């Protein structure tokens, strides 16, 4: 019964999920800016265009997707092949922009044959990744307790995001102030250089003309 439930949930989730088309050698990348210690779950489902029936086949065995995830320091966090339907998970250890890239691993040209691959994608971040039925079963919670737990998780996520926001604003302020300072110093330096160059030029030329007995 539990399996059927989660299966149905999967299908429902994809019915409302976004989809896009991807070419054979194309790589699609998504950026997720997240605080640290945040869990991200990505789920995708692929469909292949079938010329004979003129529609998208439900699933294509043998056609997989390669998922590559990089952390803000462009270090690879996850780089794995998945099947035609896949689920990938990672937890961030540094706050910042993580990049999730997907490309198909099809080596046989015949599979695509000028068609396109339809990819349904759903990315859940933070408290959206929590599976409440599971938590309820594990901790044996009543309905009220479960809902309060859900609220606590939500508030926790908001607080984490706010902390991260404070760190980002600090970085932003530092960059702005540094730019400001550089513009100021450069303007002063530029004016001084111009003045010095002008004076030097006049003096040099004057002594040059005098030496050539023209003045």
């Amino acid at each position: 019964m539990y399996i059927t439930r989660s299966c149905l949930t999967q299908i429902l989730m994809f019915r409302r999920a976004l989809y896009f088309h991807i070419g054979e050698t194309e790589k699609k990348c998504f950026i997720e800016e997240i605080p640290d210690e945040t869990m991200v779950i990505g789920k995708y489902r692929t469909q292949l265009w079938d010329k004979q029936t003129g529609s998208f086949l439900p699933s294509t065995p043998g056609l997989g997707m390669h998922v590559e995830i990089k952390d803000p320091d462009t270090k690879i966090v996850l780089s794995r092949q998945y099947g035609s339907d896949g689920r990938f998970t990672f937890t961030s250890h540094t706050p910042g922009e993580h990049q999730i890239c997907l490309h198909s691993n099809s080596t046989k040209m015949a599979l695509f044959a000028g068609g396109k691959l339809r990819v349904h994608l759903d990315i859940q971040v933070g408290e959206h990744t929590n599976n409440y039925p599971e938590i309820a079963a594990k901790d044996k919670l009543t309905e009220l307790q479960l809902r309060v737990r859900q609220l606590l998780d939500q508030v926790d996520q908001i607080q984490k995001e706010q902390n991260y926001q404070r760190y980002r604003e600090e970085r932003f302020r530092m960059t702005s102030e540094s730019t400001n300072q550089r513009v100021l110093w450069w303007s002063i330096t530029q004016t001084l250089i111009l003045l010095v160059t002008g004076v030097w030029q006049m003096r040099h030329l004057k002594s040059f003309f005098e030496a050539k007995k023209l003045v």
Partner: protein
Amino acid sequence: LLRGSCARAAVAAASFSQSLDSDFTFTLPAGRKECFYQTMRKDASLEIEYQVLDGAGLDVDFSLYSPSGNMLIADYRKSDGVHTVETEDGDYMFCFDNTFSAVSEKIIFFELILDNMEDLEGGDPDWKEYVHGTDMLDMKLEDIMDTINSVKARLGKSLQIQTVLRAFEARDRNLQESNYERVNLWSCTNLIVMVVVSGVQVYLLRSLFDDKRKSRT
């Protein structure tokens, strides 16, 4: 009986709140058009909000097509936008177009907010399937539930606002960082040009007079 409870459980698990939203940030390469599709049902509403976070002029073309192929919305070279449509059954397509820019790639953030999308019977989320035990309070439970629901809705809204603010901040930060690099680059270039021009001027003038001297003697 099994299917009914499964369906209810699935609805509950998938839609604890009435509105569903997802956001994505992606890189749109120069000269490319990227399209996304969203399946909608009748009498629901689709709200889409997008922002250009990074890339030269911070602008992009946006268009939204109905399932029958009509262009419902077309924005040209806008930096951000928000649109709401009442939907019918089918797949809505929306596209971000960067073909007007040959060199610069754009980073685009968009958020989809879907309303009234529960498409199974039993719209009232019922988690009684997998909770254990019962709460001792009985009469006031309904009031507590109502309060909790309203708190949850507000927190959800807070999260949404945070997402939008984060996108704004990311755009400002990217703008500042590109300003910083631009200032550095042009300052150095300026310095080199000034020094070179000054040297060339002096050299030219000198060479002018040296030639005259040679032609005289």
